[in-house]
């Protein structure tokens, strides 16, 4: 039989963008899910991940359009290409879900996370913490004579790096928001 004249990976002909279909390599994808802002919708999304055994690395949610009753859920997940496609299809099936965007494959995107880090210390360690905070453009949002609370915004990897540096200097507590992400460029 002659093969189909359809290129694998051509989203025009297939239900989704098909990358290497049989890859077992784990990929990290950032999904933006636009949902109706109604009770239970977050539970529905989280229940899908736990019920079907998918991973959530990070999840953020907030209302983004008060008049239109829309919220935006940003999920960072890890899986094989097949699992990622399943996750997107399953999310798309949830009735109050309006749109599912895979920011990782839909072109370039920016990702930011906000973190608050509490560092306790005296003397040189305290001075070094403040110096490194400047290099990382972290702001001091609270201070006592023996502690700082730093606020920093950036890619998750930057926050990881800063936290690693702060650990020997007295990092005692950290709060992170999870990733918020948007596609680059003009069109929504």
């Amino acid at each position: 039989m002659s093969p189909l004249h359809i290129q694998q990976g051509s989203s025009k002909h297939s239900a989704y963008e098909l990358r290497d279909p049989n890859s077992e390599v784990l990929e990290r994808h950032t999904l933006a899910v636009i949902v109706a802002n109604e009770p239970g919708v977050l539970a529905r999304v989280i229940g899908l991940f736990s019920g079907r055994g998918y991973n959530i690395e990070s999840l953020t949610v907030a209302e983004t359009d008060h008049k239109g009753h829309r919220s935006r859920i940003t999920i960072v997940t890890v899986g094989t290409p097949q699992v990622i496609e399943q996750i997107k299809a399953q999310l798309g099936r949830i009735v109050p879900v309006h749109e599912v965007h895979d920011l990782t494959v839909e072109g370039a995107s920016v990702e930011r996370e906000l973190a608050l880090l509490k560092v306790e210390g005296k003397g040189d360690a305290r001075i070094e913490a403040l110096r490194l905070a400047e290099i990382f453009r972290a702001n001091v949002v609270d201070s006592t004579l023996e502690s700082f609370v730093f606020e920093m915004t950036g890619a998750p990897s930057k926050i990881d790096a800063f936290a690693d540096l702060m650990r020997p200097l007295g990092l005692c507590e950290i709060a992170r928001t999870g990733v918020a992400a948007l596609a680059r460029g003009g069109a929504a």
Partner: protein
Amino acid sequence: MSQQTNAAQMTGAKMVVQALKDQGVEVVFGYPGGAVLPIYDELFQQNEIRHVLVRHEQGATHMAEGYARSTGKPGVVLVTSGPGATNAVTGLTDALMDSIPLVVISGQVPTFLIGTDGFQEADTVGITRPCTKNNWLVKDPDNLAETIHQAFHVATTGRPGPVLVDIPKDVQFADGTYTAPKMAKVDHYQPRVKGDIEAITALVELIEQAERPVFYTGGGVINSGPGACQLLGELADSTGFPVTSTLMGLGAYPASGKSWLGMLGMHGLYEANMAMHDCDLMINIGARFDDRITGRVNAFSPNSFKAHIDIDPSSVNKVIRVDLPIIGDVGHVLEDLLRIWKSRGRKTNKESLAKWWRQIEEWKAVNCLAYKGSDSIIKPQYALQRLEALTKGRDRYITTEVGQHQMWAAQFLHFDAPNRWMTSGGLGTMGYGLPASIGVQVAHPDALVINVAGEASWLMNMQEMGTAVQFRAPVKQFILNNERLGMVRQWQQLLHGERYSHSWSESLPDFVKLAEAFGCKGIKVDHPDQLDDAIMEMINYDGPVIFDCLVEKHENCLPMIPSGNAHNDMLLPSDDVRAITGAGAALV
């Protein structure tokens, strides 16, 4: 205008009944309780909607499923809060797995008691979230009617499924504005029904060239409607391609049709499974590559090009990677497919096709449904063959419970039309068949409705015989009684060293006396010579019958693809039944 506005003011309870009427609901299956009393009060004061009082809320959901499957319309259930709702969970899950449209309305404690662990309070929307397509808790009477209309829309649009609307008691008492169905906002949920024309054209090209094609059809064809079934018949008959179907899809293509191979899968026919394994073009129409169908996934139809028509994108590439997905409603896609195929000259690869059919005839000759007959003991297969012969041509609907009898029914009963076969496929719910048969009978009062049952499954919801008697539903309970959990026993024989752990019942009821206790007829038969007369007596009796057919206790349901095996590695009746070991033993 102001008059109209006034007319649209009513209590929440009245709105529920009005919304059901406006949705064309004729019958509701339900059970009253504290948190739904206002709705029951409204039901009492009208005559358009019939209410069938069940004996257990699980029964209500399965009746609604039977009603829905046999009519194509959504089944409606009304239950109270707390235990009423939790008892409905099994039926909701069953309907979700088998894509059956159900609308369940549950009462809830008043809004001011929610969260206080009130009497008969349960987090119903929380509990039913994973077992419904969508659910709603309505806290404002002004939103109630619109929500119910949306619920009907969601249940019946796209891939059908169950929905639930939870209504606190104070919302049922409160006044609000009624919204008519055509004013309800449903625009957001509109799944795509038309398939991509380029993909359909690509499938036509493949159909023209295929040497060893097979149609693998499922419940999606039946859910798409009688039109889709007709199109499937036309497509299969005009191309001459063989058709096999899942358990859920039986009847979509007539069993008397010339292209029919029989059911496929774990207990499917040898010729159907071999055709799936050896085909070069597999056209999946509205099926979902369930694990009962595929056997070992990495040995599933290794050399075929796979096309998959499905309305649900999440069904595609979930289990089996397909080469050509077509997202759309089966009816729409088949219509386009047929039109394009005809316009290009109705071509098929006739020579190869004839060779393919010769191969299929060889597989058919294996006679995979053969069993050893008996003069003294009723073989379950024989009982079903006689049931088939004696009910053929009648206006007949079959429901089943779950187990060996279900598989034998799928093998030995033949369906020439859709919506005539109601069985719990995905969830495998024992106790489904009796209430489902009542739901079917309510929808088709003059039809012959038979529940093919095993005694163990049947006992799980036997209280519903009370419903059958009260509502004069002359359902026939055809119980193949082996005094065993037959399928469990079979697996223990094959997989667990013949250690029959808790798979038999030592104190079964006397089913004839049980029938008399319920106020219906009981018939017991234990000899093949009496079988035909007994079946005719059952058919001709004007009322519900419990038919206790004592059958061979240790019969195995064959053929069988043991879990973990490939399609071409089946256990046939002619094989020595051997123990299954290794990886397969760990699978279900």
